[in-house]
């Protein structure tokens, strides 16, 4: 099968990591000027395959062809030389450098041995103009919004004359509207002959943008299809390997007394910028309040201020009728708050410690786990065993360091610890980020269960689908303020998307 239009072909790529077969005889091809979506769950092997194409990893078996010729890609220099450019999920940009410095890095223009910033800036301006990217070459990257940073990444690849562009989960950090803009830019690129591999796990955008779709699961290619023959449900079952319930089963909420009341809250981030600017809302027992919004609009600081991890500049936080403004975490925890933190490896777990120690992380000092200041190891062990069973944590023993667990099981340890205490309020930040579908379903079920048991839930998530599936009411956060609050039955993606982009209700 020879096709002159094929610019990139991967044949039988296999890649093993210790204990994991990340890519198992993967075949993939890309035609000139097309957008080829690579779809799969977290951990399906998409990013591994792309890192091999880009020379960051090396395949154990298989070969790669660019424009029909076999190539060896040892490192990114080789792939750049082959005209391949990649926009990584986590941006490969140096925040303290300017746009021009970032663009030229690794491919610098010099004059008399010194960097020639002027020439590079001019070229960046020209590229930016040509492709409608609107990027200022002299701006510091760290001060640009994520959407623009992503365009800087695209400029970087164009600057190196990339003809094949790999975009790894590019829409994860964008509002629906920003994603639309990105799609326009992508179409512009393909019209000029650039071919694009677009990696995602979001079903909705796949059907909107793809020319062809290759679905991966557990390191293998399940199939390559076109959007015309597909529906969301069909794609989902291809991706997961079974029927997936896209909706979370839940009954009508029965809200009772107020468990969290936030009044005119102002919070600063670590740079001293006010990222929460006068937020007010309340959460009642037995309901889920979802906070929607694109990442970086103050949600992180809001959650940290509510849980005592970050000082409050002004305003009030009342939990279960007690004023908890500016209190440290311990009294807040003791007042009946549970917290599933956004960054589970940083805040949620002590990775080098055992599951046992992590299960009692918040109440190790209380009976039955301690008598006076002496730890009661047996009580701790028994409790951990029970939680491991109740929450189905897959582990050979309770004494395994949590660093050895999979992401899903790590999150289950946190969920088990937080939900097993006697709590009235649950603050869940990005509770399913980076997890596989099975774990996501499980955690969603637990959150609904908590709600039905009369716990008030504050759900903060950048995944609009998650917010819509779980929430009874939805508040949208934009630039540190809540721009709209609606009943979830009255919410549509379009409306929420507009609010997320700053339109006022």
């Amino acid at each position, binding site marked *: 099968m020879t096709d002159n239009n094929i610019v990139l072909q991967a044949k039988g790529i296999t890649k093993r990591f210790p204990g994991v077969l990340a890519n198992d005889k993967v075949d993939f091809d890309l035609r000139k000027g097309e957008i080829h979506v690579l779809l799969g769950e977290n951990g399906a092997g998409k990013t591994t395959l792309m890192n091999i194409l880009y020379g*960051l*990893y090396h395949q154990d078996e298989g070969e790669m062809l660019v424009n029909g010729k076999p190539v060896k890609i040892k490192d990114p220099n080789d792939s750049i030389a082959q005209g391949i450019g990649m926009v*990584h999920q986590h941006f490969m*940009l*140096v*925040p*303290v450098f300017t746009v021009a410095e970032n663009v*030229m890095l690794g491919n610098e223009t010099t004059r008399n041995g*010194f*960097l020639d910033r002027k020439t590079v800036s001019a070229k960046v301006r020209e590229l930016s103009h040509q492709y409608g990217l609107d990027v200022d070459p002299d701006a510091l990257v760290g001060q640009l919004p994520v959407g623009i940073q992503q365009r800087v990444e695209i400029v970087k690849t164009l600057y190196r004359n990339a003809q094949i562009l790999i975009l790894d989960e590019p829409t994860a950090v964008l509002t629906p509207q920003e994603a639309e803009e990105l799609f326009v830019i992508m179409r512009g690129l393909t019209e000029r002959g650039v071919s694009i591999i677009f990696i995602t796990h979001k079903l909705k955008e796949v059907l909107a943008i793809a020319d062809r779709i290759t679905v991966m699961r557990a390191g293998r290619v399940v199939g390559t299809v076109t959007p015309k023959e597909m529906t969301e449900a069909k794609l989902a079952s291809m991706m997961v390997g079974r029927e997936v319930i896209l909706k979370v089963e839940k009954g009508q909420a029965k809200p009772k007394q107020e468990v969290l009341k936030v009044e005119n809250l102002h919070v600063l981030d670590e740079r001293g910028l006010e990222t929460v600017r006068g937020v007010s809302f309340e959460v009642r027992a037995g309901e889920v309040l979802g906070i929607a919004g694109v990442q970086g609009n103050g949600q992180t600081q809001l959650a940290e201020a509510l849980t005592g991890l970050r000082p409050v500049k002004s305003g009030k936080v009342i939990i279960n009728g007690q004023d908890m403004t500016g209190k440290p975490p311990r009294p807040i925890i003791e007042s009946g708050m549970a917290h599933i933190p956004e960054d589970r490896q940083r805040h949620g777990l002590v990775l080098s410690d055992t599951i046992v120690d992590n299960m009692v992380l918040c109440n190790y000092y209380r009976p039955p786990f301690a008598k006076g200041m002496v730890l009661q190891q047996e009580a701790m062990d028994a409790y951990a065993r029970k939680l491991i069973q109740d929450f189905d944590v897959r582990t050979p023993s309770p004494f395994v360091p949590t660093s050895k667990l999979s992401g899903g099981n790590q999150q289950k340890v946190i969920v088990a610890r937080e939900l097993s205490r006697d709590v009235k309020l649950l603050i869940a930040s990005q509770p399913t980020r980076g997890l596989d579908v099975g774990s996501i379903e499980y955690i969603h079920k637990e959150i609904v269960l908590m709600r039905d048991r009369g716990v008030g839930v504050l759900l903060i998530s950048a995944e609009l689908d998650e917010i819509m599936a779980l929430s009874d009411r939805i508040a949208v956060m934009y630039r540190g303020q809540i721009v709209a609050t609606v009943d979830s039955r009255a919410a549509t993606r379009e409306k929420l998307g507009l609010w997320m982009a700053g339109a006022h209700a």
Partner: protein
Amino acid sequence: MDWRRFSVIALVIIILFSVVVLIGKTKDTPIVIITSLLATTIAVATPLTLGALSGIFCERSGVVNIGIEGMMLAAAFFGWLAAIYMNTIFKIAPLPSLIAGVVAAILTGGLFALLHAMLSITYKVDQIIGGTVINILAVGITGFMNRQLFFEKGSIFGGQVPHAPGVLPRIQIPFLADIPVMGRIFDQQPLTIAAILLVIVSHYVLFHTRWGLRTRAVGEHPRAADAVGINVIFMRYANVIIGGFLAGLGGAYFTLESVPSFEPLLTNGRGFIALAAMIFGNWSPFGAWAAALVFGASQAFQIKLQLFREVIPAQWAFLQNAYIVGLAPYILTMLILTGIIGKTTPPAADGVPYEK
């Protein structure tokens, strides 16, 4: 370096100098005292400046280096040893011997830096531990060899310290050194002048060349550098070794420029103070130099006060005590690290081993 920190530096120096001028006014004119203080400040700041530059190259590329103290100590010893060897065993003239000593010191620094690079980059040893290993190793090796070579009967020098070839001669900077009185400031020894030139060179290398851009990229976001084809491991090795050369040059100051002798532990914490200068200078060459000058000034203050000891008024008697005045640089270091004079930010990937 922002204006706030710059003015603090200027203020501290002015206060220290004013005290000495007030005390010494019966013995010398203010202009003479200030000139001599400035000349001493610039000279004694040399190892701190070079140590700080060493730290800047390492840490800008993402490797924390607390082994500068040890690198300087070892370089001071082996530089001195090489100079003596050349002079007494090979009967080479003093100046070429001293230059050979400087080269040996630089290479010693580089060698220890290579070890630090291996530990922290290849073996991913905790970098602060790695630096401590360098420090302890330097103390052990110099102590042992110093004893073995100069105090054991059977050794090549017959159990006694041979006559050293002196110190590096002064260089009068043309025209500037001829200015009456103030000219003394521009009459310095070669390593001091080299240190100042290296501050300027380092600034241009770090911020205006390809090498500098890549070095900083590797220290801020190594994955981003890797993704555009920069060899992170190579850049880190190279910069740590460059840092070692600089620390070695700083070590040479002690035994080849300051005094022609070696004693165990002679660096006396200056490698660590150099790190504080680097931090206070926000990992930039000029900033670090300014900070090194403050420490230099506090040392010059101490030296001058000893000379004016007998004229110190009774109500300032504590200034007569060398031990108390000698605390100045250490307390200054701690004050600076509190960040009350402005927080500084290390390179984002400083101290983090790179894993693909």
